[in-house]
């Protein structure tokens, strides 16, 4: 029996998360700790804005440079730009970088200071996300000037024919005037033709550009046989970037699927469907109440470009469902309508709790933060037996209450680990004799495929995530860590100004 219980529509989605295009990174550049924010340009070629915070007072200079993620361009870097140090905040640096082509790029950050040199690279997808229409005032101004120029050139041609060859002081005769009128009429037609052809050219350029504006991969879902979730990704034909047969595992899975109840946001599942045919993923659902759900599916292409497929669907009650296993996890909390925006503690199982270590200051949109969390036992002591969850100290999902924003972030930041893996492979030392190489800090995940078999590694009970909210509003954060073999999720709510 096949249930086809869908679709209210496809959410707006975007490369690398939904509605959250900025890239955040926290890590080391040699001996220096850096928090980097990259705001990719909305048009390509375009200028990316870079912010670097170095938590060290002996930094003398920060330099930044854009490079393709891999290929020949990744090995022949231009002269880096020197980032500007803030006058008010000497640990904060800013700069702008040109990204010339569509695709996977990296921003390389060099830090010089008292402890020597350090370097790190952060993957960045460079895709045009919009085309701009001209605002009215500029449009009126330019249209007026163009009309003036068009009429002006016709008048100049007419005056040239009528008077330019007259002897000084002469006045044009009727013959000249008639000839002038004829030439002006012809010129007017010619100028109109030029204007018309120019408009065709402009439209052609605009259409060409529109074809290059990023079209997110489309996702639809069905529930078959009462419990089997089938997801179909559809290639939108957007160049070569979102084809479906080139997906690479990101910390061990081709897809990370997040299912969030809509509108309550009180239930969330982090699941990992398996791919059958390219673009077709299936999963036996765990126990799940009937209702409306938002689905966000993170995938990464072989180019290093991440995408998030998004859809909304009605799911029938699945009971009993498939027990959670492996890296799959579920979380439950209070409905978002009852959210306490000031709460900084979230209960975990066994009397444990997760504490959001934040200050009282209000969160601002478009500003990078480090979100710190600590896991404590019943007595407020740091929790023991905290382990890596899919190779990382934690995963955090930032979801806008209106579902227009979704970001899946790791302690290293918002770039997928698969892209870091591609970057690491591309930046292996040149084996040519005499080649000069600089050791670069790239978060290493080792063998992603073999991660399932990794032994549990004891971790510190504290985890942090670099992220910045793209716009004001209310958000729910799902913070996931693994303790004593079980995935625990702390749920927090916040308002962003």
């Amino acid at each position, binding site marked *: 029996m096949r249930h086809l219980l869908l679709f209210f529509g496809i959410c707006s989605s975007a490369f690398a998360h939904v509605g959250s295009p900025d890239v955040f990174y926290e890590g080391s550049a040699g001996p220096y700790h850096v928090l980097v924010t990259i705001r990719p340009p909305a048009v*390509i070629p*375009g200028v990316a804005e870079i912010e670097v915070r170095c938590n060290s007072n002996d930094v003398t200079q920060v330099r930044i440079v854009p*490079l393709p993620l891999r290929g020949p361009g990744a090995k022949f870097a*231009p002269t880096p730009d020197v980032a500007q140090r803030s006058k008010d905040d000497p640990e904060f640096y800013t700069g702008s970088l040109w990204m010339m082509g569509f695709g996977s790029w990296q921003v390389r950050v060099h830090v010089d200071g008292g402890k020597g040199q350090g370097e790190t690279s952060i993957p960045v997808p460079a895709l045009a996300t919009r085309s701009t229409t001209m605002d009215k005032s500029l449009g009126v101004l330019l249209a007026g000037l163009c009309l003036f120029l068009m009429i002006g050139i016709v008048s100049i041609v007419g005056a040239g024919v009528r008077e330019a060859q*007259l002897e*000084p002081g002469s006045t044009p005769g009727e013959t000249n005037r008639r000839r002038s009128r004829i030439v002006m009429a012809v010129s007017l037609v010619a100028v109109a033709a030029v204007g018309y052809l120019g408009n065709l050219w402009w439209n052609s350029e605009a259409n060409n*550009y529109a074809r290059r504006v990023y079209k997110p991969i489309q996702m639809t879902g069905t529930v078959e046989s009462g419990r089997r979730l089938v997801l179909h990704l559809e290639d939108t034909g957007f160049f070569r970037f979102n084809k479906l047969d080139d997906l690479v595992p990101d910390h061990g899975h081709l897809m990370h699927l997040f299912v969030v109840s809509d509108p309550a946001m009180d239930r969330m599942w982090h699941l990992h469907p398996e791919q059958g045919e390219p673009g077709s993923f299936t999963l036996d659902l765990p126990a799940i109440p009937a209702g409306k759900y938002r689905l966000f599916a993170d995938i990464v292409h072989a180019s290093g470009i991440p995408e998030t497929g998004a859809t909304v669907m009605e799911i029938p009650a699945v009971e009993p469902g498939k027990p959670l296993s492996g890296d799959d996890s579920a979380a439950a909390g209070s409905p978002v309508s009852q959210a306490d925006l000031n709460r900084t503690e979230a209960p975990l199982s066994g009397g444990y709790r997760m504490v959001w270590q934040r200050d009282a200051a209000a969160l601002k949109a478009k500003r990078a933060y480090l979100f710190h969390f600590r896991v404590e036992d019943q007595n407020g002591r740091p929790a023991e037996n905290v382990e890596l969850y899919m190779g990382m100290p934690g995963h955090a999902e930032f979801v806008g209450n209106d579902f227009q924003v979704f970001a899946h972030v790791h302690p290293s930041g918002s770039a997928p680990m698969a892209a870091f893996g591609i970057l690491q492979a591309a930046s292996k030392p040149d084996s040519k004799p005499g080649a000069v190489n600089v050791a670069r800090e790239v978060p290493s995940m080792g063998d992603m495929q073999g991660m399932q078999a990794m032994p549990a590694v004891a971790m510190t009970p504290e985890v942090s995530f670099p992220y910045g909210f793209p716009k004001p509003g209310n958000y729910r954060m799902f913070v996931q860590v693994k303790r004593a073999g079980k995935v625990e999720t702390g749920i927090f709510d916040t308002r962003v100004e």
Partner: protein
Amino acid sequence: MASSAEQPARVPATIPWYIWSSIVAVTSAMAGTHWDIAWHRSIGRDTFWTPAHIAIYLCGVISGVGCGYLILSTSLNGASLLKRVSVKIWGFRGPLGAFIAAWGGIAMITSAPFDDWWHRAYGLDVKIMSPPHVLLIAGMVAVEFGTLVLILGQMNRAAGKAKEKLDWLFLYVGAMIVVCICILVFEYTLRIYMHSGYFYRVVAIAIPGVLAGVAKASGRRWAATTVIGIYSVFLIGCLWILPLVSAQPKLGPVYQPVTHLIPPEFPLLLIVPAVALDWFWARSKSWKPWLVSAVSGLIFVTLFAAVQWPFATFLLSPLSRNWVFGSMYFDYNLPSTSHYVRNVFYGLEKTTPQFCAEMAMALAAAILTTRIGMGWGDWMRRIRR
């Protein structure tokens, strides 16, 4: 034609300010454009406020403001001597060249916000030809043509020393037009294409008409030679001066080490056909125009190919890799495998018949553009205002 001319308009012996300012504007545009191209070949990225862009837009500002003021002062000053040698447009009076140059200046200035919006809408520059750039180029060409007409209006009424001075300035502006045209076609006239018929066709379309027109309007014995001489000196100046400015690539990938601005190539050896054409035109004044243009086209293509072909071989040889000829300058983003860096000719025609067809088209183009140029020159000779 009704005439109220009682006395000829006096042409001052000194060159008026508005001609000098227009000359500065034209020079600024051409120097700025070569500077900008060198910037993109060596640094890669820019902003609106680079010195090269300022030099280019200064052309629009100078000509727009200068010629605009000339038109207003002529229109509003009842005693202006220029009124008798002016044309009337929308109630305003001024020399025809002033109106054309002012139009060009306004077009150039208009292109600035248009270009800025274009970048924000469709990305930063990746190609030369875009609607705002075409508007900018059209404005630049109009300023050059307007300056030419502005000079002609005086030159064709002048005599003696005044005429001679104006003639020199006229030829200088003609040379700047050649520089401008060579910029527009420079992607097709690189030294690696100089053994291709297409290269000769492009040059034959671009150059003979200007030489014929300017020579016809000037009437000077060695007009074409002077124009090409100024063009050559200007290009050699760019070739020798621009590398003195240090520069580093700011875009990747950087395949070629660059430490200074990359200048334009050595000028085309147009001086040889220019000398021959001047010599021929002095001896063919009584010939029929089409016959003159046919022989002129033949002279141009034959002599230009005869000197440029072996010179191209020289330019790709190690002997030219010095600061004099500049064949060792490469754009930062040229891979070492490219024909240009390897100093290897790139044949645009794959077969001999294709090459012959291109050369035949080059000859036909040279004849046709020469004839058009002669007609243009005749028109310019009659300009009085």
